[in-house]
């Protein structure tokens, strides 16, 4: 896990649901192909603009909906972390379990301007504008959860503990 991430912020609103990010039709596609349809209706063309290391910032109730592994699609697109004022718990767990940092920072979507460059300290749950220094303090993840993140999600641990055949242990 990268403890401090610096990247461009893409700022979205409240109650983004999983159908916004992983629509039913995309479930018929490979993760690589499905990733091209994230925010297909909300912000068409976004997946052509997002770059490796970028950070998605959302409002309240981020990720309400299904257990579809949206985090996998964000990782395909190179998204480095998710920040939200509030996460749906299933969505947050899904992200952590894929090794994608998901940090709760109240006020983030209202304060951070779209396209600004931000620095996110994952462990301390602090986000600040680069060059500004003014920051927002969120709620740090429990150490137990940070450990899952630090291991790169659940699969590397399962592989290390011998639950996966060795050939498929690598991601």
């Amino acid at each position, binding site marked *: 896990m990268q403890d401090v991430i610096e990247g461009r912020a893409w700022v979205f609103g409240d109650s983004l649901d999983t159908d916004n990010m992983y629509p*039913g039709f995309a479930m018929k596609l490979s993760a690589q192909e499905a990733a091209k349809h994230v925010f297909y209706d909300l912000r068409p063309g976004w997946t052509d603009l997002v770059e490796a290391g970028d950070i998605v910032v959302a409002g*309240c109730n981020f990720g309400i909906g299904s257990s579809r592994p949206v985090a996998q699609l964000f990782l395909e697109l190179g998204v480095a972390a998710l920040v939200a004022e509030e996460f749906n718990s*299933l969505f947050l767990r899904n992200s952590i379990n894929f090794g994608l940092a998901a940090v709760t920072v109240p006020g983030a979507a209202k304060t951070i301007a779209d396209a600004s460059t931000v620095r996110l300290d994952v462990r301390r749950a602090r986000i600040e504008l680069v060059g500004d220094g003014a920051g927002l303090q969120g709620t740090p993840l429990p150490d137990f959860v940070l450990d899952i993140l630090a291991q790169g*999600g659940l699969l590397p*641990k399962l592989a290390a503990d011998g639950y996966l055949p060795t050939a498929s242990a690598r991601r």
Partner: protein
Amino acid sequence: MSMTIIEKILAHGAGLEEAHTGDLVVCDVDMTVLIDLQFATMWTEPTRIADPERLAVIMDHAVPAPSVNDADGGVRAREFVKRFGIERFFDVGRHGICHQVIAENGLARPGQILTCTDSHTCAAGAYNTAARGLGPIEVYSIMCTGKTWFQVAPTIRYELLGAKPEIVSGKDIFLHVAGTYGDATNHNLEFGGEGLASVPMNDRRTIATQGAEVSADFTTFPADELCLDFLQQRIGERPVAVEADPNASYADLRQVDLSALEPWVARPGKVADNALPLSQLEPRKVDQCFIGSCANGQLEDLRIAAEMLRGRCVAPGVRLIVTPASQAVYTQAVHEGYVETLADAGAIVTNSTCGACFGYHMGLLGAGEVCITASTRNFKGRMGSPDAEIYMASPRTVAAAAIAGEIIDPRDILG
């Protein structure tokens, strides 16, 4: 210190005396359910699993396979259950939507913890179980290790008062709650109170299923005599109920007077802060009507639909799709004559699957179409085109709309 139902179950699962809001607990999981999508999308056969007795495999989301990819998933599922000796395998033909199959087979029991790769796993909270949906990797991990963690969320308690009128269903109760109180993100829901006795098990499961739609973690009900009778019929013994302590601490206490409720409807997009009494909705014509899913494909839902449609017809230009929640519901509906009544009226009665509910296969909506659904979700694009509109209501209200061609109060049909 006093505990809520969910705190007691999680404490027990973690081998602790107590668990309270904010505690992070690592629990043994009593039953884990894998669904067909898991095998079709990201399956690697594990080298070993925790316990084949605490695992079930249910084919539901994409059956019979609508694509070669889904068919290949079925092949992997069958190989897996054979190799690991999984007895609780519900293959196509003895299958159903997982939450219905869980209920029919007594896989969810009071005081136990149940996890599954579907967000509506909270459905089993109707049976006094701590049940929730988890992502595919986490469910895979639980299959391997038998354990996972939870951070205990604060609980909102809904105190049900009065008696539920016949015309009001679990869907209406839920839509009232969602429309009145909005989201419950990072909270648990607990239902109870003297009015619960008037809410049958099928309606409780509708409510518990839809806890996911207000973003709740766990949704639980107490196990009263009605619930214990239901479970005893399925598992052959009377389980021990887990009750909330009288002084348990709740984030909020909310009262719902069931006797004062009327049919409710949600507007398209979401249910939280977006539902209203049907009597306040403007006239709306519909193209498609759907009754099905883990929330509303139960036998009672099909009975209500058949009663509404008996001697009546689906309006010209309108499609009514009815999906039984399981093969068992389907066969019972055939024996009871519901399927005949519905088909005679012009409804399509499909095989049991999640297909239409999640816009994956069957019954998709085109741009500009309007649907009213008794299923789980009304997200934009959920059932097909993002330019279609999805209203949500009870099976009775959906059946009324199919007959009238527009969203109307079912009492106007019944006269």
